[in-house]
């Protein structure tokens, strides 16, 4: 099966600019996650979708970050305006819903550098 697709792979922007990341999950996966991974740290959940509804965005800096999942499939994460501390890898993952103990399938991430 195809994996989780993310684009772009790299992005360099100046502070105060805006940027958007795209994710296409595995077909049929109802749950989609966006994680932020700052260099030298483990990934941290930003937002979680169940189909096209948000179920957890408690760690999302809502003054500058936004995300949507149209029709319960693709998702877009946006940052506006970007700050230097937003430099990180943004990982998208998807999983089937339910309480199974299966792990996620991750994409290869987008490395964002804010200068």
């Amino acid at each position, binding site marked *: 099966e195809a994996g989780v697709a993310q684009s772009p792979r790299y992005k360099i922007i100046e502070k105060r600019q805006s940027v958007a990341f795209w994710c296409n999950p595995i077909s049929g996966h109802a749950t989609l996650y966006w994680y932020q991974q700052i260099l030298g*740290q*483990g*990934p941290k959940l930003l937002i*979680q979708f*169940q189909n096209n509804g948000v179920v957890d965005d408690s760690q999302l800096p809502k003054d500058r970050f936004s995300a949507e999942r149209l029709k319960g499939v693709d998702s877009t994460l946006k940052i506006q305006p970007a700050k230097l501390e937003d430099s990180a890898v943004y*990982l998208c993952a998807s999983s089937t*819903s339910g309480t199974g103990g299966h*792990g996620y399938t991750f994409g290869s*991430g987008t490395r964002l550098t804010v200068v």
Partner: protein
Amino acid sequence: AQTVTQSQPEMSVQEAETVTLSCTYDTSESDYYLFWYKQPPSRQMILVIRQEAYKQQNATENRFSVNFQKAAKSFSLKISDSQLGDAAMYFCAYRSVWAGFQGAQKLVFGQGTRLTINP
């Protein structure tokens, strides 16, 4: 809230030898899942092994095995016969079983251990 701690930022091992990566976690839940993920330079998280907390038997996947000590809240990963391709960042992760009103479960990650394999 659950937390995961990996106290070894870096580890190195000679090729063909055995190495153990440590992980501890904190939770008040009695049932949960634990995972080890590998992250090579390609950045994609790859599932190495998982353990269900209600199972006493330690999980094993080929050269990878875990030592799960539930009472001590410890979950270490042992890599036997280390290979050059094992070099990567390794992350320990926790996931609740109970979904709660917020839906499906998120993964809580440790800080990671960078594993180097010396030829």
